[in-house]
């Protein structure tokens, strides 16, 4: 027995464009979707659950993560109820739901709160550098330490618990009995999806989008590795220096194209950008771009007298690591691949 809760729809509206109430359940969206199958029938059922406010059903569902927003459902919907955008909103809502701190929901729903968080972190960085008398060497050294420390702590205290929550919602709560060994047997699925995003290819006409996204993911992960492990800003190794240049260029070019797409609204997926989408692509762009410039400054021996450049990069980095990675859109990288992994486990069971 489930209670209908019409206020839930109003909550979902805060996470994205909300036309889904217009749905009259014709099911065209599910019929045209190239990713839905007999195990996971969407998006209509998710639309229905959202209209009725069956949040339990949505929390325990993996369907939102299985959609890659090609937009076919939105263009064929006779009521212009935009099911694709609802699936996007549900992903945002689920991100908030999985987050034990509640900060993700706050940041996504309130632009004001997000700006506040960005400003506070920026002030923190500036305050810290004043405290360090703008000593380039110390600050850069600490910056590198921060990278390592933040990765470790964000992963341990935020991302890992949140993934556990996701697991609890989708496997334990619905009472799905999974043998321990199954988690190992299917583990390769997690890695495949995490590093290939091959499911995107199931969407019609998405080869280019998939390819660019794939390059971006690898570029990002590689740059992360290069800066954190290989200490790009500190190294004298020409190969590493060049590698870092290439990676950062890849990141800022592709993110630039993505930002341009969102401005032009050239695809269904780009029509209704939320602040969290903007923050994600713009900060990723800035991350690549400032890293590139910083390394240029280092190579031209300009950084000593232009510490502001590094500080700018550090601010972007700190905001990225403390806001966007744990609470923002970055998490979709994990949630999507884990969703595919859990889905496989559910199907095996």
């Amino acid at each position, binding site marked *: *027995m*489930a209670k*209908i809760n019409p206020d839930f729809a109003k909550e979902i509206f805060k996470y994205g464009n909300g*036309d889904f109430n217009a749905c*009259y359940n014709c099911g065209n969206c599910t019929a045209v979707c190239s990713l839905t199958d007999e195990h996971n029938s969407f998006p209509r059922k998710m639309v*229905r659950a959202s*209209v009725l406010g069956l949040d339990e059903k949505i929390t325990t569902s993996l369907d939102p993560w299985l959609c890659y927003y090609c937009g076919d459902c939105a263009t064929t919907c006779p*009521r212009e109820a935009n099911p694709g955008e609802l699936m996007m909103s549900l992903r945002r809502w689920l991100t908030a739901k999985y987050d034990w701190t509640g900060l993700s929901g706050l940041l996504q729903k309130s632009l004001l709160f997000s700006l506040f968080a960005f400003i506070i972190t920026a002030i923190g960085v500036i305050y810290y550098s004043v405290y360090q008398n703008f000593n380039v060497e110390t600050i850069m050294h600490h910056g590198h330490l921060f990278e390592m420390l933040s990765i470790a702590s964000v992963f341990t205290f935020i991302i890992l618990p949140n993934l556990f929550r996701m697991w609890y919602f989708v496997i334990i709560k619905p009472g799905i009995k999974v043998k321990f060994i199954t988690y190992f047997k299917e583990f390769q699925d997690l890695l495949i999806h995490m590093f290939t995003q091959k499911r995107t290819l199931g969407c019609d006409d998405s080869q280019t989008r998939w390819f660019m996204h794939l390059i971006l993911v690898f570029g990002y992960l590689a740059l992360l590795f290069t800066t954190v492990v290989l200490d790009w800003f500190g190294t004298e190794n020409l190969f590493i220096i060049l590698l870092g240049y290439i990676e950062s260029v890849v990141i800022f070019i592709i993110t630039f194209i993505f930002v341009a797409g969102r401005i032009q609204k050239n695809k269904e997926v780009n029509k209704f950008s939320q602040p969290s989408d903007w923050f994600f692509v713009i900060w990723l762009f800035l991350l690549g771009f400032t890293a590139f410039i910083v390394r240029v400054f280092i190579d031209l021996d300009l950084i000593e007298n232009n510490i502001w450049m590094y500080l700018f990069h550090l601010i972007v980095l700190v905001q990225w690591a403390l806001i966007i990675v744990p609470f923002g859109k970055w998490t979709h990288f994990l949630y999507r691949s884990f969703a595919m992994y859990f889905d496989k486990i559910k199907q095996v069971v």
Partner: protein
Amino acid sequence: MKNKIGVYVCMCGSNISDYVDVDKVKEAAEKIDGVYVAKTTMFACADSTQQEIENDIKEQKLDAIVVASCSPKLHLDTFRNVAQRGGLNPYNYVQVNIREQGSWAHSDNPPLATEKAINLVKGGIERVKHSKELIPIKIPSINAVAVVGAGIAGMRAALELAEMGTTVHLIEREHFVGGRTSQWNVLFTTNETGQEVVTRLYHQINTHPKITLYTGTEIIGKKGSVGEFNLTLKIKPRYIKPDCKHDIKDLEKAIAVCPIEVDDEFNFNITKRKAIYKNYCSEFPEIPAIDCEACNKCGECVKICADIDLNQQPEEVNISVGAIQLSTGFNPYEPTKGEFGFGEIDNVITLQQFKRLIELNEDALIYNNKTIKNIAYIYCVGSRQIDGPNKYCSRYCCTSAIHTAILAKEKYSEINNFHFNRGIRTYGKQEKLYHEASEAGDIFLQSFEEAPPQVERAGNETIVKINDILTDNEELEVNADLVVLVTGMVPRDYEGIVNILKVPIGRDKFFNEIHPKLRPVETVIDGVLISGACQAPLNITESVKSALSAASKVNSLVSSGEIKLEPTMAVIHNDKCTWCDKCTEACPYDAISKIKYKDKEVAEVSKSLCKGCGMCLPVCPENAIDLIGYTDIEMESMIEALIY
């Protein structure tokens, strides 16, 4: 006796000839005495064949024709017209049905189908031999009409008829005009209120010289028939002097002192009213009324208001009209006790009550002292019943419920609407409302008729449950502050008028038309037409359309001063008749009366009332009645041909 008969056997493409050997039928027909021409034809109804038959009649000088084809319901008039064009009397034509009663019915046995067709054709030929030339009857008509019911349909029809030059007697049973429409507030699509629409019509009616309005009036007697109905009207006393000054203050005081309180039917009994009343301040006629059934004549009001006269008596008035247009309207279906909690759970009301509730509650929606937030609408109550008698869809209720839900949401804050439906039927432009409601967040839940929603009381809460077919049949529930039963339409109580006018009633209990497509506003009683929701569930637009259609039909019937009637009717052989009265009992149309003939009493058939049904024939012990067009000799010779 006709002896130059033309017989045409139709193949109906292959509909007939696939199973009936039409050549054999033709050969059999040829051999019969009196048959001059016999032919088979691919399509008897085709223009070329019609022309051929017409030419045969003229050239071969035929004196009667038989077409063996489909049911006369389909093409009787077609071939009567052919006969007439060829110069024959149309009644010297007989249609034999060898399709519905032949090839289609006996497709399993072609030889016997052929044999049956031959016999039917033989019978038809024998019958046509004895056919007589008949001429339609013409009777005079008064160019006046009684329109019964001054709701939206009656008022609109009255105006149209008056504009076309017909004198209108508009008869309303209630003391005020407007009917159901005046009870509804904002109407879709114009956003006018029902009361505004009624007011506009009333002013036009009131100033039209050709319309006489009778309120508080019922028809209690009828004599005569189409062309001249003599109606007796009974006018209830209003107990207010007709020259009343309409002093609102005096009236308000009179209402205040009235000690009688009765359920207010205008508000569907959710409020009370006094015995002296006016339902809303701009109601027409302007003069208030005293409900004579409720009033105990205590005289309190007379002391305050000089315009009140409790000594008024019922009046009887006689009018003569050429036709009667019925627009007696509908009642909302009254749910049975316990139907979705109705009458048992105090916050279960009907849609009509809810509409009144919205109009009466200005700032907040309050019912039973409780502010209403969650409203559950249960659709198809009293319509589309599986076990009950109302199998029909009431058509207006989906739209009305959704429209009302939208209005409630607009008027009050924090309303949640939940629609428990069996499939939404907001046809045509009304679909816009459905879209609007769902966009506004109204929730639609659907079930099949076998598993209707359940309304339950749990402590202080009313819970509506449904197995929603749009959510994998999952059981869902809503805490409803108010349950609105979206009740359909049943005809308004019409017993009196049915007894007087003998209007036929359909299986759905609404008045029945002759033919739903071709003669949708006429009844089998000549001169009695039906319009609006007394005929079927209709919304206002549809009611007015049917009212205008009936109005033009009435006008074309009575305005020329002369009415043509079918000559098929009973005649009495006065010499044989001994007036036993059996035929009057058998006649469903009151068409037979007693007259003096020579030195005895005999029966006489009214030409305008007789429908030619033949009910009186078999009951006559003297065999003194014949049915023109179906005379004994015609029928007997036909039967003989069939069996020998």
